């Protein structure tokens, strides 16, 4: 923000002195340095995303957030019908440099504060989508998004907001990788190999990436070498990286936290079947949540979200089933 005065933040409960810096303290502190550029809104999601769009059209670079990804549905007309189409409808004359942030994932709050809606937005042309799994990427992708001339939706996982601080979640995982102080970006559309392997490619982002790494660890114990790819961006998607990996391992499993039907995994599986049919030794495995709303009670929530165990099973199934 210090670099570009066109950048401003807009959201609920982000600018109150003595407040929280958003539902998950993400903007905490910024309200002191950039008072006028931290805009605290009424509880009006459609309004605030539309306002951000209007400002973006005029050349500002807003960073708009909702407190939970579920609330994107309150702003859905703006996101889908306006933000994603404005440039196109204008015949390319209007530019929409707009960043949207939304925390996702189930955290003991029941069905309305828990969804992983990535797949729903994945099918909306005109939006770029990123999903950082580490603190390093969170900073680098945010900076890339802010410098991008198109709408970018950033999904962040509540359980990755750091194990420290006042709003850390009980089961939060430590994703606090080294974060350099200096300016750097993680380019949109660049995935990364988180662990190398030769028998099966496991594609996973956000919290699932961490579980996939744990699964890979366990699989190694069984003699199965899993390569873990974190695509980091969903749109654009790093097909090159994934194809290179699957070309080597000849097997793939996609892990996601959202419901299975119509999920990200469906697209990746269908695309890989088309792109890599000469290589794939087995159908792409999909690990996802069941097709249900998110339940509250801890045992049910735990059952809902893919576990390390389920990832291990799926990878093992794909490898063993194809003579690995």
């Amino acid at each position, binding site marked *: 923000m210090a670099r570009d005065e066109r950048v401003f933040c807009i959201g*609920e*409960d982000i600018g*109150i*002195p*003595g*407040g*929280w810096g958003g*539902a998950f303290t993400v903007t905490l502190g910024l309200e002191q340095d950039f008072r006028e550029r931290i805009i*605290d*809104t*009424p*509880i*009006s*999601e*459609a*309004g605030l995303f539309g306002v951000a769009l209007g400002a973006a059209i005029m050349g500002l670079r807003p960073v708009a957030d909702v407190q939970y990804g*579920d*609330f994107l549905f*309150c702003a859905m007309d703006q996101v889908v019908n306006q933000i994603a189409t404005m440039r196109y409808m204008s015949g390319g004359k209007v530019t929409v440099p707009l960043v949207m942030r939304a925390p996702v994932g189930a*955290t*003991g*709050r*029941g*069905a*309305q*504060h828990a969804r992983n809606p990535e797949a729903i937005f994945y099918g909306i042309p005109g939006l770029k989508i990123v999903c950082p799994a580490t603190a390093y990427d969170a900073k680098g992708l945010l900076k890339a998004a802010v410098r991008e001339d198109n709408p970018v939706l950033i999904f962040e996982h509540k359980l990755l907001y750091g194990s420290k601080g*006042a*709003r850390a979640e009980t089961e939060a995982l430590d994703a606090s990788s080294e974060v350099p102080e200096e300016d750097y970006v993680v380019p949109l559309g660049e995935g990364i190999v988180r662990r190398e392997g030769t028998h099966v490619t496991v594609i996973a982002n956000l919290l699932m990436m961490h579980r996939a790494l744990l699964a890979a660890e366990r699989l190694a114990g069984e003699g199965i070498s899993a390569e873990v790819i974190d695509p980091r961006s969903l749109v654009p998607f790093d097909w090159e990286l994934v194809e290179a990996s699957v070309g080597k391992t000849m097997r793939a499993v996609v892990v996601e936290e959202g419901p299975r039907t119509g999920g990200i995994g469906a697209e990746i599986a269908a695309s890989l079947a088309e792109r890599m049919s000469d290589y794939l030794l087995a159908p792409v495995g999909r690990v996802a949540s*069941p*097709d*249900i*709303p998110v*339940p*509250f*009670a*801890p*045992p*049910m*929530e*735990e*059952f*809902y979200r893919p576990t390390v165990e389920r990832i291990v099973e799926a990878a093992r199934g794909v490898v063993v089933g194809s003579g690995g």
Partner: protein
Amino acid sequence: MAYDTQFLLGLYRQMVLIRQFEERVKFLFLEGVMPGTIHQYQGQEAVAVGVCSALEAQDVITSTHRPHGHALAKGLSIESLMGELFGKVTGCCHGKGGSMHVGDLEKGMVPAIAIVGGGVPIATGIGLSFKLRQEPRVAVCFMGDGATNEGAFHEAVNMGAIWSLPVVYVIENNRYSASTPICQTARVERLTERAHAYGIPGVTVDGNDVLTVHEAAQVAVERARSGAGPTLLEAMTYRITGHSRRDPCLYQPEEERKQALAEEPIGRYGAWLLAEGTAEQAALDQARAEVDAEIEEAVRAAQAAPAPAPEAALEDVFA
């Protein structure tokens, strides 16, 4: 108005029940034995109790992310509520809902809606069903001050108005939506000025005075039941606890908090009962002891109750 003593004491007992329930729950959270998150009702008890005491059993309420008070006031059992907070099968939603979605249609409470403003259209539709069926029932929509800035509020209250539906829209104005003061997000002195926009009456009352709330609610409920249409009822109150767990409320000015604590509804009403001679201190103490015992029993029962089987998550998606 003259009320009978039983009724007056009943209101007191209900408010104390809610307060003690919430305090106990807060403690369970701090101990780390209760899962999830909570939004609590301490300080606002006079609203739920004042309004619900003006309703019949067959009337229906919708609630919010802060629903425990509404649930107890509408007659859900302490057990079924505590069970739900613990995520047990004995909970009013069998553990599927959790704190933000407690409810029981049999008791006239729709599972609480945690999307701010989301319940306003739903309550309006409940009112529509009563009108279409010509049933003499009323729908009450509880919402916070912040909810009045949502589009859903606007659309739904307008529909209630144009169709003269039997609905009472209750704004619990505790002056904040999360950390944001309402005076920063609405330029109107009273949120009931928004009633003008829909051509319905708007009434603002002292929401920390249970009898005042009760009386205003009665008028609005009567109006709704008679077919004269909805009322926007604003109850001025204060949340004397955090917005949700672990909120130290640093955004609330010291002075304001002090004043609010002095005006909190239970102390005030208790003092009034004593001053009027309606009750002795002993009766008040006894009410409190009784509810404490009931709450303890509910905690015990909830902790002892079975957790749902993990695979039970797969049930109840479709009828």
